[in-house]
């Protein structure tokens, strides 16, 4: 296999505080190849930002070796690093009065000469970067007028204008609405696949990360695991990292659910969307889905028309035509099993 774009050997990240070293993660051995999209996941305070800042060489490692394109980062000049790694941080980009084009142009820093004059090649690289993030039309707009999502795309274009082999992003989706989040994760994956970039991004969007990442780095409570998302789901690492008394990781759906209510048994019959939605209502109200009905199991038949349902519990039957009604029923049904105790 080819040399990884970014790799680390026994890399210890953390802070220096009054001459003491305070590592936030165990020593890491990492490798990211061109074309690979890595998502870094973990609860707040798990050291995600520290790791990313260290990978982007903005922060010094406490120990170990960081390699960029196979070369020890310590031996590289800052400008060489600028040509190799593009960084995008969480905070809103705040640069004063500049057009989006000018902001992306700042990314040409490691390539332009001393005077900072943009040549033909620089202009071409800027337009290419704007095009890659789908922000061609924003070029002349003032950065202050842009929405958070647009601004984040311009910031990524700025990093792309550096023509790096590696892109490091710290929670790029943090301030975006749901649609922009999905779009951005798709963009990162495309940049990895189509442009051959090694992309490392931290995020709190587990769901999205699990669907789009090639590799997941999981940090929590001083632990670190790396692997394909499905492997980590299978080995129970996700449940261990994020699960709690109140939150359960649903392995089958690869999402987290609130643990609610007593978990009385229920079963949903019916086809397609109606059955799925009826099941969602019951789960939210704290019922546990079971495969086979027994005594005391709530049996809901969804359909035939959308929103229609029929519920049966111990011989009592109810029906309705909206999910709101089903929710009210599921909430208010007396719990005989517990009242008997």
């Amino acid at each position, binding site marked *: 296999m080819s040399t990884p774009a970014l790799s680390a050997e026994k890399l210890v990240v953390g802070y220096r505080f009054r001459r003491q070293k305070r590592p936030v993660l165990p020593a890491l051995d990492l490798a990211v190849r061109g074309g690979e999209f890595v998502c870094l996941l973990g609860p707040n305070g798990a050291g995600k930002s520290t790791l990313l800042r260290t990978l982007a060489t903005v922060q010094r490692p406490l120990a170990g070796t960081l390699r960029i394109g196979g070369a020890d980062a310590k031996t590289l000049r800052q400008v060489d690093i600028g040509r190799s790694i593009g960084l995008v941080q969480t905070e809103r980009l705040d640069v004063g009065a500049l057009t989006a084009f000018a902001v992306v142009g700042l990314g040409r820093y490691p390539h332009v000469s001393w005077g900072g004059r943009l040549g033909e090649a620089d202009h071409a690289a800027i337009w290419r970067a704007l095009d*890659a993030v789908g922000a061609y039309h924003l070029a002349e707009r003032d950065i202050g007028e842009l929405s958070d999502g647009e601004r984040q795309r311009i910031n990524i274009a700025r990093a792309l204008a550096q023509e790096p082999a590696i892109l490091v992003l710290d929670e790029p989706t943090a301030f975006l609405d749901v649609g922009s989040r999905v779009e951005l994760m798709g963009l990162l994956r495309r940049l990895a696949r189509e442009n051959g970039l090694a992309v490392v991004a931290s995020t709190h969007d587990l769901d999205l990360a699990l669907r789009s990442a090639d590799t997941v780095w999981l940090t929590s409570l001083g632990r670190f695991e790396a692997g394909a998302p499905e492997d980590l789901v299978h080995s129970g690492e996700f449940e261990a990292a994020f699960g709690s008394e109140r939150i359960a990781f649903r392995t089958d759906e690869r999402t987290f659910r609130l643990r609610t209510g007593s978990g009385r048994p229920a079963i949903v019959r019916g086809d397609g969307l109606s059955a799925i939605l009826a099941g969602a209502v019951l789960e939210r109200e704290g019922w546990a889905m079971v495969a086979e009905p027994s005594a005391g199991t709530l049996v809901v038949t969804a359909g035939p028309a959308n929103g229609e349902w029929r519920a049966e519990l111990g011989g009592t039957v109810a029906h309705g035509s909206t999910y709101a009604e089903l929710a009210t029923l599921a909430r208010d049904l007396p719990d005989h099993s517990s009242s008997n105790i």
Partner: protein
Amino acid sequence: MSVLSGAAGEAATDPPSRSSAAPPIAALRDGRLVRRRSRPVVVLSVLAGAVVLAFLLAIVVGSVTIPLGTVVSILLGETPERASWAVIVHDVRLPRAVTAALSGAALGIAGLQMQTLLRNPLADPFALGITSGASLGVAIAVLGAGSAAGALLGGAFGLAGDLAVAAAAILGAFVVLVPVLVLASRVRNAATILIIGLMFGYAVQSVVTILVVGTSFEQLQRWIAWGYGSFGGVTSNQLAIYVPLLVVGIGIAAATTKQLNALLLGEAYAKSMGLNVRAMRIATLAGASTLAGVVTAFCGPIVFLGVAIPHLARGLVGTSDHRVLVPAVILLGAVLALLAQLAALVANGDGLLPLNAVTSLIGAPVVVFVILRSRKGAFVA
């Protein structure tokens, strides 16, 4: 390195299939891109013209009005019918105008550097305590030398003495600026940094006061007069020091516009894009200390120009791009300082109004405007 450039090159030479890498033709055709580029050129040309006008006006106006034509001919080296006019122009008004123009440019550039480095819209040499540090340097140099009269406004020790006072002011400015910036790097809150700077300034200023109060009444009076600020105290001999020092200081900013632009994004981004942040910070500190220190040594602690000029320049050129902003600040600084000097002269008849009274009237509204305009109190956040 070969691996690096190879990897980067692959990404670069792989053009997106969706379109070619050229500017949108529509944008070029309707002239929007072109117009944006031409606005700074127009503004800079107008400002350059304004500098020339203000400069000539500063030589024409005074206790004796000298006709503009005569002023021009004197500047061109001809001898006027009244010999006294040539003396006034050469010994008083020309040095004063040169001092004003350069000082305004210098203070504006120092303010711009501080604002960009700290990403703080209200940073300037005065708020950060640099001016007070320079005052301390001057006080120690002058009082330490045991001199009596006239030393504060220079001249008592000849050129070597002037140089020593300037060096002391630069050193004093630097000594105060470094701890303020060290603290600033740990405090993210812009308002906190300014308050720290102001407190440093007050503390240093009180040391200066203690030093000065212990001396003669006459010297105290001179000190107070110096504190009002004036462009009129620099002799043509002293310009031999004043001009080169300020030109070097301004030159540092002019030579680092690319780096200043990178710093617009903050130090982490600037570093990630390849800027040697530490070296840049030191160069900028040295430059700003020189500019603010030298101006303070010769003209007194002039307030508000440093914070106001960069804002007004930004408003005029409509961009934060330092390649445009640095020349705009230099020109606008020169114009404003010349006009402030004129206003101080005209408002008070023969005598000079304290320069700081005028600069405060220009600067204070600008600061209030900036605070009010800053997006949802971003200045405080």
